[in-house]
């Protein structure tokens, strides 16, 4: 018997994984809410620890939002693959005739839709405590829109590599946070550039380029790591 007729079907595979994981995320809405609440708390607590100085807050605001976004994305990473690994679904995913990288891509897309996208949409709200002006908010949201998918894509590689490892959660943070650094630098840098009056074009272009590279490479790397984890 030769390969299954669905062997090259990228889109149905992507859709299967996306629909399943989004459904599951909404079945455990509590976890989603906790994650968003965590983000909101970090963003709101930070100004309380600083002197009441408008210029200072406007200067640190984008950086704080970015660091909080990094941590919120990291917080949801164990859910990306670990649950499926423990209940045996990941074995079935790896044995599916569909391309594994496409299935993993669908899971990554679901992770971004449930963790990254809400942060992008709510940026104007979360920027309030920092008194950012309109242009800074737009650039910050644009940066998050380009950057948070990179976090999900890179995070998937880390999540796959730490499957089955003891202390997987903390190991995952150690492994993946350094990789998040460039995204943080260019993301927060875009907002700084606007304040400095030089325009955010360069930073956003670099983030966009980074996103394209991550889309092209991360699903394959994560798929390879999943196969190694199951071996």
């Amino acid at each position, binding site marked *: 018997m030769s390969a299954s007729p669905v062997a090259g079907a990228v889109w149905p595979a992507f859709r299967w994984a996306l629909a399943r994981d989004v459904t599951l995320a909404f079945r455990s809405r509590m976890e989603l809410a906790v994650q968003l609440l965590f983000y909101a708390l970090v963003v709101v607590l930070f100004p309380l620890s600083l002197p009441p100085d408008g210029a200072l807050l406007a200067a640190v605001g984008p950086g704080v939002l970015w660091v909080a976004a990094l941590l919120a994305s990291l917080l949801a990473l164990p859910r990306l693959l670990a649950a499926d690994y423990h209940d045996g679904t990941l074995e079935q995913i790896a044995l599916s*005739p569909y391309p594994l990288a496409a299935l993993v891509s669908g899971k990554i897309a679901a992770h971004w839709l449930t963790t990254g996208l809400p942060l992008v949409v709510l940026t104007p709200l979360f920027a309030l405590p920092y008194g950012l002006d309109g242009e800074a908010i737009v650039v910050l949201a644009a940066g998050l829109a380009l950057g948070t998918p990179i976090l999900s894509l890179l995070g998937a590689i880390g999540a796959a590599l730490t499957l089955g490892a003891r202390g997987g959660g903390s190991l995952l943070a150690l492994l993946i946070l350094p990789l998040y650094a460039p995204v943080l630098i260019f993301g927060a840098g875009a907002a700084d550039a606007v304040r400095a009056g030089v325009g955010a074009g360069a930073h956003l272009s670099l983030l966009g380029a980074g996103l394209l590279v991550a889309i092209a490479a991360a699903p394959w790397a994560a798929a390879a790591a999943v196969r190694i984890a199951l071996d």
Partner: protein
Amino acid sequence: MLAAHDLAARRGFAQLFAGLAFRVDPGSALLVTGANGTGKTTLLRILAGLTAPTAGAVHWNGALVAPFDPSLRAAVAYAGHAPALNDNLTAGENLASLAALGGTPASDDQLRAALDTVALAAQRNLPARVLSQGQRRRIGLARLVLSSRPLWLLDEPVTALDAAGIGALTDLVRRHLDGGGLVVAATHVTLDLPAARVAELALG
């Protein structure tokens, strides 16, 4: 036809088995027996293409297959220790999801019929988290029915099943063999199958 030549596997530093050779023809079953820790699960995982043997080769229909080989992935229905059920999905949703993942989406009628064969029709809309271990196993059996794969790899399929469940499993396996399918099962319990169809492989 599934054939293994000179298979060897190790777990850590311990040699599980070596020089293993067997052949399973369409319409026949291989029951793998042996004490705990003799490599039954490892053997099934090698045959499923989830892991590579340390030596030897697996052939499917005459062609050498490496782990995750597309032709093997299109032929194997693997039922491992973990039943691959998500607690937050209902029995029906789990089954539909696994069938779609296998590349053979099931219609509503097919789902109902498959759940009926394992006497779970009434539990269709219950979340998997409230099902008993035996009922979870039964969903695994229903998945085999829907998969329409020629090669079934069953790891301890009778675990947690009651007498009726074992009867249903035996019926399914017998029907699968009648239809020209192949079965490799690691099991402690001898299933009531026609002796001419069954070979036994003792590990350890």
